[in-house]
């Protein structure tokens, strides 16, 4: 790979001393980013570091308050999204948003349909998009509607859209989060193609292994400012993590000695067509049982089926010997299962409602006498848990959307721990949370386990899995690949299983 920078060429994009505030919150303080054409550039940083805000300023979603942006040597006009597109910026968001009712061809050319004497020229658009798909090495039918195609294919369409706008800078925001391993490979090939054709690709990701495999240079942000930038070849994962976190990462996984008891949860040959098949495992009281694997391996689907959000096709779920009906979350709850879901905002909380209401929503029966809900009991329950979990808030009546990510997660944990479950299922418990709260959450889970709770944890973060789990159940594309005990587990073994290999014993 040849970088313009190594030949002394000018950067295609320079963002210097960019600052942006929302109300009283400074999202960007002193952000800097330099891009050269023909490179894949990783933008790293924890949640809340300012990566999204910086890129949104580039995308035209909002305007930076201060700083200079230069694109291809000329000052960049901050305006609307259309202005950014016209100047050659293309952004592919984590959730690609296509228009499901329109054809792929029209999606590629949306807002800029090809015309022939003023009228839309469908044949030309179909031909052009077919060519673009070929150039990317993918077979997609431009004539089909976008509804129902996989996320990976949606990304390809977005990339084709970017190419059709002659974008000089293509930004990809967490593109691999929802892809299977095969699809990730395909994406990497596409990105390498783009690089060779001279585009500059900004790759935002939390997966350091991917970043180190694909990218040429990287920039690390922290607390709204850029704290470092280097060639990938000249740095290491550890250095990058240090930069991202800003301090020594010690004792992130406080694990207490486990007291493991009887089997409480039995999952037997659980299957759901298209999602997972033949999943069986047992979880004992006091144990932390982790479901590991790449994103998209079906783990969240399995636990949703166990809890009853989705119905499964065959198999059984048993708690303390009693079989649980499928598709009834309320039944699972009363039996003693709790689920802290993956999507905090959409599934775990009522953002506009108060902290008290959020904590109480799972406890309503307990908090009532006959039909009457006792308000005072509601408030005291919320207070009690807020203290126990050291929640940082102004008033229990405040809407939870005002809390930070870590505190929001604490509210979700409160509402479920308050139901005194026997089995606590947590899906990505520390995603998008600052380091300090991460440690608190881990400590809490460990405590609960020691007190006899069975904890089932889905996590895509290897260090978390290795640090917390007693047993690790590895899945890949809906099937069980192997189970590891705490003492025999290490990163290589987990990744091998998660990517379809076999461990030599």
């Amino acid at each position, binding site marked *: 790979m040849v970088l313009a920078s190594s030949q002394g060429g000018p950067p295609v994009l320079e963002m210097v001393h960019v600052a942006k505030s929302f109300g009283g919150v400074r999202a960007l303080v002193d952000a800097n980013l330099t891009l050269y054409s023909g490179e894949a550039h990783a933008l790293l940083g924890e949640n809340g570091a300012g990566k999204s805000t910086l890129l949104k300023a580039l*995308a035209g979603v909002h305007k930076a308050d201060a700083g200079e942006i230069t694109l291809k040597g000329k000052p960049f006009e901050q305006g609307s*999204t259309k202005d950014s597109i016209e100047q050659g910026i293309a952004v592919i968001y984590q959730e690609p948003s296509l*228009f*499901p009712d329109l054809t792929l061809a029209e999606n590629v050319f949306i*807002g800029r349909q090809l015309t022939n004497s003023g009228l839309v020229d469908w044949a030309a658009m179909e031909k052009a998009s077919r060519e673009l798909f070929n150039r990317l090495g993918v077979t997609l039918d431009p004539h089909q509607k976008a509804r129902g195609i996989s996320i990976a294919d949606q990304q390809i369409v977005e990339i084709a859209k970017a190419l059709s706008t002659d974008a000089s800078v293509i930004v990809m925001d967490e593109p691999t989060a*929802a892809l*299977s391993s095969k699809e990730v490979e395909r994406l990497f090939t596409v990105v390498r193609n783009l690089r060779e054709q001279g585009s500059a690709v900004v790759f935002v990701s939390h997966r350091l292994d991917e970043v180190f495999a694909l990218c040429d240079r990287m920039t690390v942000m922290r607390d709204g400012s850029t704290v470092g930038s280097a060639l990938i070849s000249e740095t290491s994962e550890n250095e990058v993590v240090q930069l991202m976190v800003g301090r020594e990462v010690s004792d992130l996984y406080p694990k207490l000695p486990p007291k493991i008891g009887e089997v409480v949860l039995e999952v037997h040959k659980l299957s759901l067509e298209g999602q997972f098949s033949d999943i069986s495992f047992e979880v004992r009281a006091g144990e932390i049982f982790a479901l590991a694997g790449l994103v998209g391996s079906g783990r969240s689907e399995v636990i949703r089926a166990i809890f009853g959000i989705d119905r499964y096709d065959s198999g059984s779920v048993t708690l303390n010997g009693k079989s649980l009906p499928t598709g009834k979350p309320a039944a699972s709850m009363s039996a003693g299962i709790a689920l802290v879901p993956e999507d905090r905002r959409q599934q775990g909380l009522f953002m506009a409602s108060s902290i008290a209401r959020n904590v109480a929503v799972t406890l309503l029966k307990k908090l009532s006498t006959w039909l009457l809900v006792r308000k005072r009991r509601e408030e005291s329950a919320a207070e009690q848990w807020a203290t126990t979990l050291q929640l940082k808030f102004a008033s229990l009546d405040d809407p939870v959307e005002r809390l930070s990510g870590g505190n929001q997660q604490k509210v979700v944990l409160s509402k479920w721990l308050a139901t005194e479950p026997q089995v606590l299922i947590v899906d990505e418990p520390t995603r998008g949370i600052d380091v300090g709260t991460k440690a608190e959450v881990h400590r809490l889970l460990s405590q609960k386990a020691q007190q006899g709770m069975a904890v089932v944890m889905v996590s895509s973060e290897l260090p978390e899995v290795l640090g917390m789990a007693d047993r690790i159940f590895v899945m890949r594309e809906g099937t069980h690949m192997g189970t590891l005990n705490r003492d025999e587990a290490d990163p290589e073994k987990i990744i091998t299983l998660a990517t379809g290999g076999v461990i030599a014993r």
Partner: protein
Amino acid sequence: MRAVTNLFRAREMPVFLALVVVVAIAGIANPAFLSAAGAIDILLGVAIVAILAVGQTFVIVMRHIDLSVGSLIGFTSFLIGDMYAQGYGLWGGLAAALAVGLAVGAANGFLVAYLKLPSLVVTLGALYIVRGVFNDYAFGRTITAAMVPPEVAWIGLNRLGGIPYLFLIGLSLVIISGLVMRRVKAARDLYAIGSNPAAAELAGIPVARRVFGAFVLNGAITGMAGAVMLGRFNAANANSGLALELIVIAACVVGGVTIAGGSGSVWGAFLGAILLQAITRTIGALGIPQFWQQAFNGGLIILAIAFDKYLNSRVKTTTIMGSHND
């Protein structure tokens, strides 16, 4: 070959087939139905709904709705006759109708597009207010045949090659709108806005401007359609157009213009209007009392919506297993 299979898969095919079936049933039950007189009867009845359905399609496709059209067309049909009777002539009346249509459309459009209020509520309020203002303006008067401009009356009564002019007006509007919806960039934006409103903003589409424009356009079409209504009935009063919006929306939904937005065509809405009218006549042809009319319309809309949902749900969402096969 691809063209033929695509034709069969078109959204509009179910409506078309339903229409064929209904006509067949009616024709078997009562052969007079299939006569020229029977057909003309249907075509006459279709004209108003078809025109309004075209305008409504622009709105529904964006995932909005306009409930004020019944009140508006009643008002403008009355207005045209009234202006003529007061000496402003045909053009005075038409100008007034257009002005009122544009004003209502602009008001609706402004509240929905720029203040971002829900179109259901806004046009519901407009339905009330327009009907109220209309009632005050009409104040118990009626427009009689003598007050209808002769040109309007003439168009209402006459035919070209056996086909009523009123229907031809509707058909021309459908043809032109069909082309526009398919080949004009700004119209394609309407589909995008309905299909994924958030993405439309990000894609640089001027959403507010398009939404505003669609409501204004619908207002203008509805306003001018007052002339068609006046020509059809040769009369107008404070009850003109009452509850018409529901029939119009029914025609759209039945014709494949889904309430969820993003898809459907004016051709479908047109076929939907014809289908509803055909069913009305069929009920008569089969000797069933008119009373069942509304019930049938209601049942039909439910079937159309359910079928629409079924079509949409058959497309699979992302699967995890088996993705390693690609």
